[in-house]
């Protein structure tokens, strides 16, 4: 469009199906909201299964909950919340057209997400050595063995699918970071940063639901 602008970043033109950049930005963020609605129901199915199983085997779920690694889980919660903070900061930086801070904050977010995955890996490893992996390596005695197995089945499904979401998020953030570094965004156009941010906050919120269900509920009460 206009190559001779003062800013280092050229003003992008909308994709052919849109009339204006504003329309494109609205469509992108609205699309992400609709996608997140899908995601809520995706996790919702599993949470319903969790609720049913917990209602059926309260004692077993309490026992299993006490086997969880609360220290790693709590550290991970802090890590993820912090990453949400750096993400929000990155969106804010992008909004003000600050190129380098945007990229650095996105990098920090991605690193925190990687740390989350690494800690999750340590946790999975410990569970493997303790024979808590249903179907593959599960050995548990006692009257509640069965319910413990169900708990861990749901635990691996929930955290595994959440982990996949984190991984996809890291990919998205990395791509956005590179684009930010190369100067693809400006005050007038930072939709990808905003949309990635929406996704990332959702991943974080899912964890905020999982954390108490996995680590805390079993430890309350007798």
């Amino acid at each position, binding site marked *: 469009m206009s190559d001779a602008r003062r800013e280092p970043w050229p003003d992008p033109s909308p994709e052919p*199906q849109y009339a204006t950049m504003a329309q494109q930005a609205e469509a992108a963020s*609205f699309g992400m909201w609709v996608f997140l609605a899908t995601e809520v129901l995706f996790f919702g199915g599993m949470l319903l299964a969790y609720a049913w199983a917990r209602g059926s085997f309260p004692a077993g779920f309490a026992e299993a909950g006490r086997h969880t690694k609360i220290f790693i889980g709590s550290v991970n919660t802090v890590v993820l919340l912090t990453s949400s903070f750096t993400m929000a900061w990155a969106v804010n930086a992008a909004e003000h057209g600050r190129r380098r801070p945007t990229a650095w904050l996105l990098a920090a977010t991605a690193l925190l997400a990687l740390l989350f995955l690494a800690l999750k890996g340590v946790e999975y490893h410990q569970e493997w050595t303790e024979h808590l992996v249903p179907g593959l390596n599960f050995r548990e005695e006692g009257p509640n063995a069965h319910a413990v197995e169900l708990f861990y089945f749901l635990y691996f499904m929930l955290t595994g699918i959440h982990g996949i979401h984190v991984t996809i998020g890291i990919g998205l953030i990395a791509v956005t970071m590179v684009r930010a570094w190369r100067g693809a965004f400006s005050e007038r156009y930072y939709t990808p940063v905003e949309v990635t941010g929406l996704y990332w906050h959702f991943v974080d919120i899912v964890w905020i639901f999982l954390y108490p269900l996995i680590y805390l509920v079993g430890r309350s009460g007798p």
Partner: protein
Amino acid sequence: MTTATVTGKTDEPVVGTRNYLTEGGVTLRSWLLTRDHKRIAILYTLSITLFFFVGGAAATLIRLNLVTPPGIFTPDVYNRLFTLHGIVMVWFFLIPSIPNTMGNFLIPLMIGAKDLAFPRLNLLSWYLYMAAGLLALFAIVIGGVDTGWTFYTPFSSMYSNGYVVLALAAVFTAGFSSILTGLNFIVTTHRMRAPGMTWYRLPVFVWSNYATSIIMVLATPVLAITLALVAVERLLQVGIFDPALGGDPLLFQHLFWFYSHPAVYIMILPGFGVISEVVPCFARKPLFGYKFVVWSSITISVIGFFVWAHHMFVAGISLYAGLVFSLLSYVIAVPSAIKVFNWTATLHKGWISFDAPMLYALGFIGLFTIGGLTGLFLANLAFDVHVTDTYFVVAHFHYIMVGGMVSAYFAGLHYWWPKVTGRLYHEWWARIAALLIFFGFNLTFFPQFILGYLGMQRRYFSYAPEFQLWNIFSSAGASVLAVGYVLPFFYLGWSLFRGQRAGANPWAATGLEWQTSSPPPTHNFDRTPTVTRPPYQYRPEPEPQDV
């Protein structure tokens, strides 16, 4: 163009020299990498036609087997056939049928947009669909699946000896294709409307696809995760659906029907949309009670989420759950009835002509009414106890799915054929096919109501001799139906090459899609149209055919 809903200088001659079929190249590559919603719609049309014939072939073999008990196939082959028929027809034909072909092609045209909001996502959706479809076909070729399309646990997770996990993966993937389409339609409808195209000026076809998309986006993920849980349960022998593992098979049924009942509305709502376009056009009258028709679609898509357990009245749910779900099922019948009355009232004092699309549409109204009314029988708590899982159910949902949805699909296919291809088809052959389908359909499926009431259970490869007479009627009807479905293949194919050129608006219809040339150019409109009037402003006198 006196019937136009558009103002502006669109009166220049509309000769389809520059159109989406030739613009951008005609190579295979240009098709496989296209982002044009119209080309993707064509890709979808070809693929769902393939799957329709695969599913139809299975149906033919099923009806052949049921002519003479105990039939010509072994039980295992028969069980695989009906499972194949169900999976292919539900997920690879009915669910994508109208939304992904006509919806894809028409929604941007109808709202005056250049394309859907996310063209790449649209193409990805087609690739996911194809990957899923090929996976399903692969599962069938290497040995098949015998669970029925419902995948009930613990049979599917522990006892079945078919390739269940592959089939689950196929349906899982198809689910994401459908989610992406729904997402695209919702955003497009919200954000891409032309100036002046207010919500109440949207054609009902767009409204019904919008309602459908809401269901796709909110119900499909639940199916996806449920099937994933079944697959893991089958692979690792741990899970929450098998009672032997401490699970509950009813939990599976609740989750499955939470998707699969709304999915029925995914299959029928777009059909309502097509009929609401065709009936006013051939009755030359505005749609009666536009707002009622629109809001009944939205109501159906919302209440549709709260009726799922009416599939489980004999499965062991509590009495109170049964009472509530039955009541809601009666409530959801009301908006469907409203639609039927509105279409009928649209005919009142019109100038009705009986071209092929109208014949299909009238057939739709008749068959859908029968299907809907027998739905009342099944929603009835006590009566359901007698007929659920019998041929009564089979007949009921085929009246909705085949009599309703497939008729609507054919109505739309004929109605928009000139727009999509720029050619006219042979009207008399089309009318003959429409009549064959109507009579063949009734002969096939009406006897099944009687069979069900007599007590013939579904998914039986063999049956008692007293049921044979009705089964012979049904199979005879199926052969008529098969001829009716194959005929369009020929005369539509012929029209592609030899058909008379269609003008921009051969039906003298209102609606933005008729304001651009046939076939439309890649970006749909030469200039963005501005809308000043509500839809369906058909004049009281029949218009001379314009072009």
